[in-house]
């Protein structure tokens, strides 16, 4: 009886104490709630884990293979930015009880809202494609051609979202990302020169090349992905986190971000200490990227890599279409609440189906350049990132929207710097790319 688990869970929620009966509480309600918020699967940790998806792995691996530790310093900077941005998103969710797209619509009207939604959708479509490419690549390591694996995975994800128990699947997917914790071990076993790693973290080593800028923006784009911020805010709203739980939610978002970026940093170190040192600087296949795990897993490196890549890609492939559907529903005022069954929320289903279908179609094209496509998508993401960040920044510091919970002065400066830096990079990349095209 499937409902029984749910019923007992609901019963546990309502556990009663304080009566004359024997005490059967093993946790006070407040601390139970705290654990639910800070716990293993808060929005922040899920978002962060989904952030280390196919595109993330491809980008971090490319960074490590091409430049060794040279880009490590920016992981520190990006982590600070990510924490700042996610905190704003979570805070807005808790204070207003509304999603980001909804707030943009209410505060800036239809035109701005369409602009923001369009850029989010372009970015999301790209990432959705990249997740299915990632699924194909992961199972490709096991010898299954993407033309077989991707459609099956796509149908599975679709059924899960439309009919199934998403909560259970979410846990499985997150568990499947555990193999990526092999990266820190692999990085240590590869015996990197910790002196130069430490130096690279604190001392920026900047190259003035197009490729460096390209990877720089891809890293920013994949780490501070727009959809993650939308997801965090919507999840905070849906879970009913109120301002009284804001500090717990802040802690959760912060640890999630730091944790995910630590793993990302170790991916760079592991690839830097192996592929880069062996002169394998331009990786183009998943099999190459998997070699970074060899110091730990030996000949099982590919298996480990495949499972991790599959889990992360599936997790993001499930979250992404839903996030996109929320954004569209909020922007256009379509039904997204109140007994959302299929026939009552057709737009929801249509958006989810379309995104999955497009992702699948692209991913089964024979002979697509996997790694360059994955990194390329992250560059698009990084370029569109400023659009969303500016909205987040402005809304989070708006007195009308946030009241006493608006950004403080120091915080505003940090957020502003993030916005300016990412915007500057996007403009720079556009200029360099266009300039390169004309020269």
């Amino acid at each position: 009886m499937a409902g029984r688990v749910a019923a007992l869970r609901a019963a546990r929620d309502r556990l009663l104490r304080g009566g004359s009966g024997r005490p059967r509480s093993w946790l006070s309600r407040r601390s139970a709630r705290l654990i639910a918020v800070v716990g293993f699967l808060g929005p922040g940790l899920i978002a962060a884990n989904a952030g280390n998806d196919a595109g993330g792995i491809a980008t971090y691996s490319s960074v490590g293979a091409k430049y060794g530790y040279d880009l490590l310093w920016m992981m520190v900077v990006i982590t600070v930015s990510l924490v700042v941005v996610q905190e704003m998103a979570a805070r807005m969710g808790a204070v207003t009880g509304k999603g980001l797209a909804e707030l943009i619509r209410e505060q800036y009207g239809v035109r701005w809202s369409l602009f923001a939604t369009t850029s989010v959708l372009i970015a999301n479509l790209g990432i959705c494609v990249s997740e299915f490419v990632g699924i194909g690549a992961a199972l490709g390591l096991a010898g299954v051609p993407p033309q077989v694996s991707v459609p099956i995975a796509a149908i599975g994800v679709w059924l899960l979202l439309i009919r199934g128990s998403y909560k259970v699947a979410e846990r499985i997917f997150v568990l499947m990302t555990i193999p990526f914790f092999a990266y820190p071990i692999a990085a240590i076993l590869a015996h990197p020169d910790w002196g130069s790693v430490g130096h690279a973290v604190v001392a920026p080593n900047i190259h003035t090349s197009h490729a460096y800028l390209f990877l720089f923006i891809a890293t920013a784009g994949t780490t501070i992905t727009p959809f993650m911020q939308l997801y965090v805010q919507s999840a905070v709203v849906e879970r009913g986190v109120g301002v009284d739980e804001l500090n717990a939610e802040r802690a959760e978002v912060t640890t999630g971000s730091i944790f995910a970026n630590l793993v990302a940093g170790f991916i760079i170190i592991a690839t830097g200490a192996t592929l880069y040192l062996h002169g394998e600087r331009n990786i183009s296949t998943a099999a190459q990227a998997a070699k970074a795990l060899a110091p730990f897993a030996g000949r099982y490196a590919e298996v480990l890599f495949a499972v991790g890549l599959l889990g992360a890609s599936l997790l993001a492939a499930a979250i992404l279409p839903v996030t996109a559907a929320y954004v569209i529903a909020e922007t256009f005022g379509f039904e997204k609440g109140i007994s959302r069954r299929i026939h009552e929320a057709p737009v929801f289903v249509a958006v989810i189906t379309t995104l999955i279908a497009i992702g699948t179609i692209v991913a089964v094209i024979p002979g697509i350049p996997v790694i360059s496509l994955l990194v390329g998508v992250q560059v698009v993401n990084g370029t569109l990132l400023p659009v969303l960040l500016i909205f987040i920044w402005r809304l989070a510091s708006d007195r009308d929207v946030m009241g006493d919970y608006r950004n403080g002065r120091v915080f505003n400066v940090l957020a502003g710097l993030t916005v300016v830096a990412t915007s500057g990079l996007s403009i720079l990349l556009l200029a360099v790319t266009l300039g390169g095209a004309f020269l």
Partner: protein
Amino acid sequence: MATTTPPTVLHLSLIVGGTLRDRNGGRLGKVDDLIVRLGEDYPPVTGVLATVAGRPVFVPASELAEIGHGRVEMVSDRIDLQHFERRTGEVLLRKDVLDRQLINVDGARLVRANEIELARLEGWYRVVGVDTGLRGIVRRVAPRRLGANMPPGTFLDWASVEAFTGHVPSVRLRVPHPKLARLHAAQLADLVEAASHNEGEEIMRAVGDNEELEADVFEELDAQHRREFIEERSDDEVAAVLERMETDDAVDLLGDLPEERREQVVKLLPAVQRRRVRALAGYDPATAGGLMSPEFVCLYAQATKQEAIGRIERSRAPADTLAWVYVMNLDRRLKGAIALADLLRADPEMTMGEAATFLPPRVGAESDLEEVARLMTDYDLTVVPVVDERDQIMGVVSVDDVLEMVLPRGWRRRFDVLGGE
């Protein structure tokens, strides 16, 4: 959904941004917003906010001659510089209503105001409806000239709309939401769950005047929202809500309160209910003891049919638990049961012991949900008695409480995938 297409429909987005003109058509300034007074079926325009020579100006309705797309004309040719002060019930259409969520009362759902439609009705300009479809969005995104030529489509009649006003920055503004009274408690609960917290609070406050309805809405809310809203209420308010609930639901709600407040609230309850709540509160909610209601009718085997009916007439127990009437022997042991309909049809000469031939299956207070559900299914029962170790009846579990617990979650909330437990 009621829809109308009056002859000349004006679109708010084409009025604001237009020019404010004097009697002779001379340009005075730019129209920023329209003010309306909520409360009527079709709220009248009570003024215009405009920018004249770089300064914000308020023009009361008495100074206005005509409102149209791209222009608002005044009665006189000079302007009194007035400062806008919000009067009771007044909202700014563009700032406070456009692009925000509204309640479609007749559809019992939340909609978004993509466009606000006005028309001249009963001699003055009034809000007649909202466009919640794509047409409104397209008109606003399209260039102004193109938008003005788009024919008005069907729209939602304002008579079936309630606007949220909680975000309007004015303490004096307390707009009642009379149309909400048309909704059923379950529908109101769905709306509260779908709305943001503040909007939900506005709905709860609006139904708060009707304590019976408020208690019903609380019963229908899911655990997460019930907790959110009950915590914000004072002990007295919580007690007032609990008083109107059935005991088992009241205990559930009490469980949503922080531990330190429960005793305070229980003390505020009337004596009878206080005793019942205390008795029930000792049981695990996933067992028969936690699910049962202490309100039922059980008579001695010697009682007559007339006495039984008299007890039912005086009983304050909810109708569903009275579907079965129980019979006990002199040791108060459960001896039999009879369905209410069978009791009515029974021979008036028979005693209850003779009439109630059915020996009902029973559960102990520790029996779990599954056992109760299975008994109900096997015996086709809507009510199952709960007995103590001496086989004395303590309460009854009715099917609605069990159904609520065993219904798969997905049946209710299809796309609630981002939510927590």
